[in-house]
């Protein structure tokens, strides 16, 4: 029992960057843009958040910088695909290569400036991202560990996911956005400001991915800067969008399940299963999910119809 609780708690911690990436990508896809740049945006968020945190000692500034880092990446993507109507696949991939390159480059650049030869976040920040401890709640048996023992990022991520669910499902703007994703020309004809909404949501989504990036740098990598800090989480997030069937709330569940795959090897008794298999597991499961969802196609849980196609007004 003790072990199960520990396992679930570890899965949540390890799945949280996926949650940010997935939710950010859902916003992109809901506006009709399949953005393959999640890994890149996360990487840009990681480096900007980490370096601002390192030099400013401020957790809040670091969060804002991470958001902005991801948002800048998304803004490049938005300009190219929304206004310039460039191919979404290629633009997203380029954003990933550029973002990872930029993250690694700047990371090594600042590493070169540091005297110790390593970059480690100051105690002031690491202290704030440690697990919260609510008097009376965190010490409760079982529930305390399962619900009240995480770092602030976890709660922030869940709140963002729920707010976005509400935004997409219950608000007028959310409805407009979904209309754009399904059929931009119909949305345009209905008087929805397609370009403006696309920009806002793509950039917002990128910012959320950026926070996921800094989570990797701060928590997954224990606050020490390493190259390739995001390490493939962004790609899993792109695939998780499908697993979550484009719902931010289902993304919460999905990312924790995938978080569990990441850490499974430490919790199952070793029965001669090769180490490499555990590394492969998240990707294998995602591939299977892709196949299964494509076999039983349901209109309800599928990609927005306009996703991947750029909208040119005068083509109507």
């Amino acid at each position: 029992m003790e072990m199960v609780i520990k396992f679930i708690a570890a899965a949540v911690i390890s799945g949280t960057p996926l949650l940010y990436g997935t939710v950010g990508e859902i916003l992109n896809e809901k506006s009709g843009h399949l953005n393959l740049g999640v890994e890149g945006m996360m990487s840009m968020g990681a480096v900007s958040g980490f370096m601002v945190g390192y030099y400013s000692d401020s957790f809040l500034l670091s969060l804002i910088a991470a958001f902005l880092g991801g948002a800048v990446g998304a803004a490049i993507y938005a300009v190219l695909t929304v206004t310039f109507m460039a191919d979404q696949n290629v633009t997203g991939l380029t954003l990933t290569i550029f973002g990872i390159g930029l993250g690694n480059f700047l990371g090594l650049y600042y590493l070169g400036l540091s005297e110790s030869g390593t970059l480690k976040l100051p105690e002031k920040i690491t202290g704030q991202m440690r697990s919260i401890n609510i008097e009376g709640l965190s010490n409760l048996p079982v529930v305390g560990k399962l619900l009240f023992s995480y770092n602030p990022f976890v709660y922030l991520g869940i709140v963002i996911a729920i707010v976005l669910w509400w935004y997409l499902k219950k608000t007028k703007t959310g409805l407009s956005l979904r209309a754009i994703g399904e059929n931009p020309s119909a949305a345009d004809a209905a008087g929805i400001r397609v370009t403006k909404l696309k920009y806002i949501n793509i950039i917002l989504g990128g910012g959320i991915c950026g926070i996921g990036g800094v989570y990797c740098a701060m928590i997954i990598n224990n606050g020490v800067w390493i190259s390739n800090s995001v390490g493939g989480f962004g790609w899993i997030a792109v695939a998780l969008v499908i697993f979550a069937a484009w719902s931010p709330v289902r993304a919460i569940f999905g990312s924790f399940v995938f978080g569990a795959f990441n850490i499974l090897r430490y919790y199952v008794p070793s029965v001669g299963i090769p180490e490499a298999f555990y590394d492969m597991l998240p990707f294998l499961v995602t591939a299977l999910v892709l196949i299964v969802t494509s076999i039983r196609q349901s209109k309800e849980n599928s990609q927005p119809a306009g996703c991947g196609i750029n909208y040119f007004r005068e083509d109507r």
Partner: protein
Amino acid sequence: MANMNNTAKEPLIRIGKRNELTAKNAMFLRLAAFGLALVAGGVFILAVGHNPISVYWTIIRGSFRSEMAIQATIKYMIPLLITSLGITLAFRMRFWNIGAEGQVIMGAIFASYFALFFDGLPHVLLIILMIIAGIIGGGIWGLIPAFFKVRYNTNETLFTLMLNYIALYIIVFLRDGPWADPESGGFPKIARFSKNAQLDKIFGVQAGWIIGIILVVLVFIYMRYSKHGYEINVVGESKATARYAGMNVRKIVLRTMFISGGICGITGMVSATGSDMTLATAVAGGVGFTAIIVAWLARLNPFTILLVSFLFSVLEKGSTVIQSEFGLSTDSSEVLQGIILFFVLGCEFFVRYRFIRRKKGGTD
């Protein structure tokens, strides 16, 4: 915005289609975009405290300064060139194969099997066997997503992506278990190939460059003059048209993805047996992704791919020199590649569209 309250009014700037630019003007536009990208890259270099002109000059000088430097540049070019050619076939068909990375790896694994366990065979026979094995390995890895695409319409972009990682961890598995080098002293690696299983050198560079150049011509002929090439283009334009014309779209997709993956598999074979001399986890090392940029920049033309992949290898080789001379990490080459493609992607817009300013006095 001025027209916020008055939706009937025409916006200040709108986008309109333009008549097709002449090929010369379009080329000029792309060169201008490339120039602008260099300027933007220069601003970036300036921001990290270096002189852009001397950094650019060092990149070029570093790639050509000696015979050895040129050989190293060519060595960078080989995997990029061959992989881009493979991707081109899939992209012509609008099959978003971003699984080149995995196809390279599978080609390398299949070829390595012969390099490790059949190295007693005559050299020429072994090399030919390894090339065929590479093609089959990469081909299978291309065939899997194609099968699910034609059967269930599974999203190939994400599926090929996942196959990349699965392939990567297959190497890790082989390295840690069945193919582990017993003489490595516990360090996880696969044994170095025997001399007999190594690809020969021609003019001081592994023979992969010859294979690459042959493939440029073959892919060009295949795409331009063969029935298969024509079918690929039609399927790329419109699957419905292809079906209406009586083509077997499923068969075309499967066949093309086998060839596309197979060519990428050759990359794996030449990288493992020509450059690494073993099967390393970094045998693909991101080339599958960079190759997509190359193929796209070259507008899927094999000869332009040769040019662009050479340009990119200059960047890659040059970035190792600016690392040693300026202390800037080699990641700068990815940043510059990204910037170049951003600008070229942006400029494609101006080939097809233009901004139209609102005329004075309302609508036109």
